[in-house]
C-alpha cells in the first residue's frame, strides 16, 4: 500500500450543466422547510444548495393526520405537499433566502403541464435569486386520469419540454423511483432539455394499524425515505448515470459521509440529504466534512474523480 498523502488543494465545486455549486452537498425538498427553520443548526451558506419545500400555484393544506410513521430504518410520510403557494413563497420566503445569499433551488409541483409552465414563468421574474428549479414529476396528472407524470417517459418528456421553453432558469428533473425502468425516464428528461436529473423521490409504500384494522396513514399510501431505501436509490443512480450525459444528483437515505461517497462513486455529481436532516438537523455539515476529509486522505482532487468508470 502506498503512503497516504493528504491533499490540501482539493476542489469541491461542481457544475451541474449551468448550475454551479460550491460543494456537492444539497438539502432535499420537504426536509429543510424553507431554509430558515434550520438556521440555528446549520450554516446554509456552507452547503451547496437548499432545495425548498415543493411549491404549487395555490397554497395546499396537505393531508389529514397521521402524516408520518416510522418503519425499520425508514420514515413513511404522506404530508400531501402542504405548502404556502408560489405567491407567498415569493413575498414571504424567498426574500430572506436572497438576503442571506443562500443558493436556492425551488422545487415545484403541479397537476397539469399548464400549472408547471405557469409556475416557471412566475419564478422567472426572480431568476437572479433562484439557482435552479427542480421539477417534482411524482404528482398525479389530472388530464391523464391521475397517473403521475413521472411514471412514463412520455409524461416526463411532456412536462419538461414545456417548462424549458418558458424559463431561463436551469431545470432539474426529480425522478420518481416508482417506475419499471428508470433509464427510459432519465433519457426522456434529457431529451426534453433538462439540465440535470435528481433521484430518487420517496418509494410508494404503506403501513397498517392492526388494532384499528385500517391503513395507518391518513392518506393510505405514503412515501418511504431514509436508510431503508438507500440501496435501491444507489442502484437507480448507477443506472441513470450510465443512461444519460446530463449530471445526476443522488438522493435516498444518505445519512453519513460514507453514504455520500457511495452515491458519488455510483456516478452522482452532487447529493441531497433528506430524512437525515429530520433526525439530526446538522447532518449535512457533518456529511460535507466527512466527505472532504475522505477526498483529502485518498487523494481525490475533485468530486467527479470519485466516479467508478
Amino acid at each position: 500500500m502506498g503512503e497516504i498523502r493528504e491533499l490540501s488543494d482539493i476542489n469541491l465545486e461542481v457544475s451541474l450543466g449551468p448550475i454551479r455549486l460550491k460543494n456537492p452537498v444539497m438539502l432535499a425538498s420537504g426536509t429543510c422547510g424553507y431554509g430558515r427553520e434550520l438556521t440555528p443548526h446549520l450554516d446554509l451558506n456552507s452547503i451547496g444548495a437548499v432545495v425548498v419545500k415543493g411549491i404549487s400555484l395555490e397554497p395546499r393544506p396537505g393531508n389529514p393526520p397521521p402524516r408520518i410513521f416510522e418503519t425499520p430504518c425508514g420514515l413513511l410520510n404522506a404530508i400531501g405537499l402542504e405548502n404556502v403557494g408560489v405567491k407567498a413563497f415569493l413575498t414571504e420566503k424567498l426574500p430572506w433566502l436572497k438576503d442571506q445569499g443562500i443558493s436556492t433551488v425551488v422545487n415545484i409541483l403541479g397537476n397539469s403541464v399548464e400549472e408547471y409552465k405557469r409556475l416557471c414563468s412566475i419564478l422567472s421574474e426572480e431568476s437572479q435569486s433562484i439557482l435552479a428549479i427542480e421539477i417534482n414529476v411524482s404528482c398525479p396528472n389530472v388530464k391523464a386520469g391521475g397517473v403521475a407524470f413521472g411514471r412514463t417517459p412520455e409524461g416526463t418528456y411532456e412536462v419538461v419540454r414545456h417548462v424549458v421553453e418558458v424559463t431561463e432558469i436551469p431545470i432539474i428533473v426529480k425522478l420518481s423511483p416508482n417506475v419499471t425502468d428508470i433509464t427510459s425516464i432519465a433519457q426522456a428528461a434529457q431529451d426534453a432539455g433538462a439540465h440535470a436529473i435528481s433521484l430518487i423521490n420517496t418509494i410508494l409504500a404503506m403501513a397498517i394499524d392492526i388494532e384499528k384494522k385500517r391503513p395507518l396513514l391518513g392518506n393510505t399510501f405514503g412515501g418511504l425515505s431514509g436508510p431503508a431505501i438507500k440501496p435501491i436509490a444507489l442502484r437507480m443512480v448507477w443506472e441513470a448515470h450510465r443512461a444519460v450525459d446530463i449530471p445526476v444528483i443522488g438522493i435516498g437515505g444518505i445519512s453519513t459521509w460514507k453514504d455520500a461517497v457511495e452515491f458519488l462513486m455510483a456516478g452522482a455529481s452532487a447529493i441531497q440529504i433528506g430524512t437525515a436532516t429530520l433526525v439530526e438537523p446538522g447532518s449535512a455539515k457533518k456529511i460535507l466534512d466527512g466527505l472532504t476529509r475522505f477526498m483529502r486522505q485518498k487523494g481525490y482532487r475533485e468530486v467527479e474523480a470519485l466516479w467508478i468508470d
Partner: protein
Amino acid sequence: MVLVDRKCKIIHHSQVGPEVYVLGIDAVDVAKHALPGQFVMIGVRGKSAFDPLLRRPFSIAWTDHVKGMIFIFYRVVGRGTRLLSEYMPGTGLELLGPLGRGFSLEVSGRRILVGGGLGIAPIIFLYKWIKASGASATCILGARTGDELLGALKASDISLEDVIITTEDGSLGKKGLVTGPLAKCLDHIGGDATIQACGPAPMLKAVSNLSNHKVRLLEVSLESYMACGIGLCLGCAHKKRGDSEEYVHICKDGPVFDARDVVL
C-alpha cells in the same frame, strides 16, 4: 433563544411506577432557558445504528437550576421508550431542545391546572414555576393507579397536600377522572379563570366540554407523531378549528394551543 443539539449525560434514571420512569439529564443551558410546556427530542438509538430512526418527543417535566438538569417523566409504550429505559446513568443521550411554545405564564384571575396520565409532566413544571413565582394555582392530577403518580410527585418534590389527585382505581386521592374535581372547581369560580391542561385526547375533550364559556382561556398541550420537532417536515399536523381545511403544526405552533383554535 437557546437551542441545544448535542449529547447530554444521564445523571439520574429511576423507575417510579409500573413502566414509568424519571430521567434526569445534565443540560445546564436547557435547564436555564426551558419554559413550562416545552419539550425535547431525545435520540433513543445506539451508536451508528439507524433503528429506531427518529428521535422521540418528551415534555420537560421540571428543571433543577442548581444542578443544571432537566427531568423527563415517561412511560414505556413501544420500542423507543423501551430502549430509553435501558440507558444507564453516565451514558450520553442525543438531546435537541428546548422546543415549541409552552403555556402562558402570566394570566389574570384564577388558575386551574389539569394533568392526566403522562400529561402530568408539563403540568408539574408549570405548577412548580407558578409556585416559585409566588403565585397560586389549583392543580388537579389524574392517573390510572396511585403508584404511577406517587413516584412522580416524590421525584419532583410536590407535596400530596398541595394538589388534588384522582385515580381510576381509587388507590390514591379521589376515585374517578380529573373532570370530577374540575367540575366542582368550575362551579365556584367566576368567568375570569384560566385552565391549562395536558393529557390524553379524550381528557382534553372532556375538559373543553366542561369549561365551555365558563373560563376566559383554556390552553391544551397536544401530541402527535413527530419526525423533526422543529418545523421542517410538516408531519405533526393537527386540524384547526373551523370549516376550512387548515392545519397547525404541533412542534412549532404548539404543543400548547388555545383550545378555541384547534379541533379536540
